[in-house]
């Protein structure tokens, strides 16, 4: 039996002395996508930052493809196969789009040309500095840059946050292509549950650092009660 892509057991982590996550048990198989949901301050970002290696570990384990990465440094986790798209995007603003991509590229199936195929806007803007891009273009660059390290698991922290609706649709189409078309495993944090659930195979809702709902994303999408209770998502009114 092969090891799952990602497995956390009784994971407790936080910032300094403060523990935010209260024993997270999570398993993600290769090629699957997980929607990580919850209200503000419930530990979603802390969980992906813990997987990325940025928080203080208090207990439990993290395994990536069977390898224990619990104590591994963040840069080594990238080499082990984790790509991260942070909420604040964090692109290199003093570098051009092309430099942002090539500076950190690792050998693998994802190349600059493939990234340009996925995000044609970036190709048009390849000579522009990161600081000259719109918010949506910066987000596309952040996703493309994460792909350039050729990860096995992509962590996306609120990729749709603050973007115009037309850009949201464009980015969602690209993300769908990445997870469905390319079979990339991903964990996506998102406030807009109805936007991200159709993209994911599984869903988890966090509350106060613990998992309060775990199931398939299609089940959650159909479960108006759970959406309302845990996320405050109102029922979509039927079209007249």
């Amino acid at each position, binding site marked *: 039996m092969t090891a799952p892509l990602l497995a956390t057991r009784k994971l407790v982590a936080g910032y300094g002395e403060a523990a935010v996550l209260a024993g997270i048990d999570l398993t993600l198989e290769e090629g699957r996508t997980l929607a990580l949901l919850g209200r503000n301050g419930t530990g979603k970002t802390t969980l992906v930052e813990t997987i*990325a*290696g*940025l928080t203080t570990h208090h207990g439990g384990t993290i395994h990536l493809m069977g390898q224990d990465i619990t104590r591994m*440094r*963040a*840069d*080594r986790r*990238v*080499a082990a196969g984790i790509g*991260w798209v*942070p909420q604040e995007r*964090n692109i*290199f603003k*003093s570098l*051009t789009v*092309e*430099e942002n*991509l*090539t*500076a*950190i*590229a*690792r*050998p*693998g*199936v994802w*190349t*600059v*040309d*493939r990234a340009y*195929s*996925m995000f*044609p806007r970036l190709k048009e803007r390849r000579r522009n500095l990161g600081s000259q891009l719109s918010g949506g273009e910066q987000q596309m660059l952040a996703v493309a*840059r994460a792909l*350039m*390290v050729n990860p096995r698991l992509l962590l996306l922290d609120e990729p749709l946050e603050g973007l115009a609706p037309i850009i949201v*649709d*464009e980015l969602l*189409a*690209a993300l769908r*292509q990445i997870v469905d*078309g*390319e079979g990339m495993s991903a964990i996506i944090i998102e406030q807009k549950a109805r936007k991200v659930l159709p993209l994911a195979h599984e869903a988890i809702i966090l509350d106060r650092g613990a998992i309060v709902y775990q199931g398939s994303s299609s089940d959650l999408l159909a479960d108006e009660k759970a959406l309302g209770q845990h996320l405050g998502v109102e029922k979509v009114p039927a079209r007249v």
Partner: protein
Amino acid sequence: MSVITREDVAPVEDGQDDQARAMRLMRRRSRIRFFEFIIWPAAVAAIFLLPSKMLILTEIAILALFAVSLDLVLGFAGIVSLGHTAFFGIGAYTAGLFARHYFAEPVTGLLVAGVVSGILGFATSFLILRGSDLTRLMTTLGIALMLGEAANQMGWLTGGADGLSGFSLGPILGLFEFDLWGRNGYIYCLAVLFVTTMVARRIAFSPFGLALKAIKSNPTRAALVGVPARRRLVIAYTIAAVMAGFAGALLTQTTSFVSPDVLAFHRSADVLLILVIGGTGYLYGGIFGAIGFTLLKDWLSVVTPQYWMFWIGLLLVILVLVGRGRIARWIEYIPQRLTAAMGGKP
């Protein structure tokens, strides 16, 4: 938006195309700039045009080398240091002791001094990796102060407060004697400055240099794109220590004297001031700053012998007030059209 299928995406076997593309971009960034075509020929021309100014030109070359080494640490790696003179001083003492007890050939002494400074840099780099800018300032300052006091107390080895003297250097590479007018000394220092700056330039505009800048601007982001910050900073700090050691060795070799003054706090402060004047993060700031600082100091000490430090201090305050956010990036004040003609902003 068009839907992309696997067939639309060009199949690529490995990352060789990306590597070639990255190297092309790197070469574009590292192209020789206009001012580089001016400054080096001018430095060579000074040998013939300013024969009476060899001593001050030697001083400038040594200071420039020291400042270039600090720029690698401060401007590229983002490590603030108030104790860079520790490596300068160790290099100076090593060169003096080596010439006195072992071998008087300067280039050999220079290399030995660089190695010893590099070892000290490597050993102390692990201390400066911890903590924030303030703790780094204190740690680097502390190391320099400790070494200064050790040099002062270990009179049997260093000559104590009187300094180390009574040694003479042999001909450079066994061919060129240090002459009374300082001509060969200047050529020697200029050659070392040129070679070292070219090496530093190569490092700065390599993937390693880019990684350093990434760490400087955001260590977390650097880690999350796979840059091992700790290892990169240790290497950068060690290389800078070697370069500072070279600068110290040059001072000893061109003056045939070394005293605890080479480890004094004011040297660390001076070299920081030089970078403020010249600008950080493009290497040549150290050279421009050293020229400006030395000429200014020389001129002010003639015009107002008693108050020259007052005017230097005032200049520093004005630079900081005028520069604000762009302090140490004065080149941004030059009109864009002019910098484009110069080959782009550094």
